[in-house]
């Protein structure tokens, strides 16, 4: 059996008894087991590891399939996210939504933002994704010295990212 976090063989099988839903078994290589046991519940990586282990249960096949899933915008795979605990771009929250939601519940107990909202936003997740893609196409164009294409892309990007309100127009109650 493979480690749940890398390609190495799983030599540690840790049963967690703390959860109300019953015991959870995690299959880990020596290195990941050490990291997991030492870091404790306070580290974000451990929180993510615990959440994913529970969500995926004991089936290696489900995990294998999920691991191949790739974000069309930044190209990060689910495996890379699992290994690093870091996502690749804002669009991942949309693309991996179904897989991330149980994890969010596990880490935060809740899934719906209740706090502050920005005064302005970039529209839909799709338009944000489009902006990121345009930017990387632009960088490619610059690299291959296609400056005409690069400047077209730059203009398109500028239009999408332009601030709705120009800065410096309002006074501030500075304390």
């Amino acid at each position, binding site marked *: 059996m493979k480690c749940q976090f890398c390609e190495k063989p799983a030599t540690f099988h840790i049963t967690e008894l703390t959860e109300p839903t019953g015991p959870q078994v995690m299959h880990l290589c020596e290195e990941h087991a050490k990291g997991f046991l030492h870091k404790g519940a306070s580290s974000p990586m451990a929180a993510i590891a615990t959440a994913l282990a529970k969500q995926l249960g004991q089936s290696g096949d489900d995990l294998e399939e999920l691991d191949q899933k790739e974000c069309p915008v930044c190209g990060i795979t689910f495996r890379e996210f699992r290994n690093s605990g870091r996502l690749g771009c*804002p669009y991942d929250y949309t693309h991996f939504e179904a897989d991330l939601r149980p994890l969010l519940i596990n880490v935060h107990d*809740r899934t719906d*933002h*209740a706090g502050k909202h920005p005064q302005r936003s970039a529209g839909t997740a799709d338009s944000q994704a489009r902006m990121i893609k345009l930017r990387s196409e632009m960088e490619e164009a610059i690299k291959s010295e296609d400056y005409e294409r690069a400047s077209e892309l730059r203009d398109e990007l500028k239009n999408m990212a332009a*601030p709705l309100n120009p800065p410096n127009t309002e006074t501030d109650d*500075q304390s």
Partner: protein
Amino acid sequence: MKRDADFEQLARYTGEWMRGEGPESDIVISTRVRLARNLADFPFIRRCSDEDRLSIERTVRSRMETIADRLWESAQYVDLEPLSEIDRQLLVERQLISREIADSDGSRAVAFDASEGYSVMINEEDHLRIQVMRSGLDIENTWKQVNRIDDMLEEVVLYAFHPRYGYLTACPTNVGTGLRVSVMLHLPALVITEQMDRVFRSMQRINVTVRGLYGEGSQYTGDFYQVSNQVTLGYTESELLDLVGKEVAPRIIEYERKAREALLKNNRDDLHDEVSRAMGILSTARKISSEETMHHLSKIRLGISMGLIDKPDVKIINQLFLQSQSAHLQKLQGRILGTAERHARRASFLQQHLSGKDDATWN
């Protein structure tokens, strides 16, 4: 914004937030609130190309310059990439930047104001980490200031935001509010009376984490602990601020006060002896490590707050905590020191400032 800081000058002073003042400052060192934010039109740092990182750094810097006069007084902007390791270390010791950003590669920067109470890290784990620090337990004012900076930055950059998941962050443990409220506590009496385990256990159940100074692994130096919220999504900012500032911190403060009272009542002589010995070691040692220094300074700080000794001032102890760290010592000395030299330099530095024979290093 002024580009780059004078690091020799920086090493001579402590930031405003280290002055040892403010509510509950006998136990609470500082309150820190930080917000994690990302730009909508870039990948998160992990998937950024070098060009992306440079472009983020330049964009944020130039946008911040347009609001700098409203943002804060006399801001400095420090490009971290070309900085020497020792200067980066100095910024870590002052808590202006994290160890992660100091040790990473590529374009990255920090902007901070003259009081060192505000700082914005660019290209840490998230594109922006906005942080405000204040002396003592002062959740409300700290939040007000960080929120004000966030509002202003929001006028000039476009944040990655999702209607359901809130502010989007590289790690799902920060998503939603992106808010981390941390209170740094000095808890020597709970450590002496072996009650920290109990505190840890009671905290695990209520969505907060307790960590050692600088949050580094399991090593707790000098009896300093940081309490912060664990969750960030699904709660309002004020709920999270109250959780740490009104529920958890006051409870730990009360435990520590009770432990101090009990020590005074039952072990006054032993404690007084320990404090005096700590003072003796720091004012006579010829060489000393930073761990041992932290340990003794912590005892002296306790002795001062409990009225067992009346000098030096707590402000001086805070200053010694900061300046006896390696990068500060080397900066004050004006050159790189080997381990043995550092230990000797640290000992003479401590001696100088604890024996009452102050020189012109401070004013």
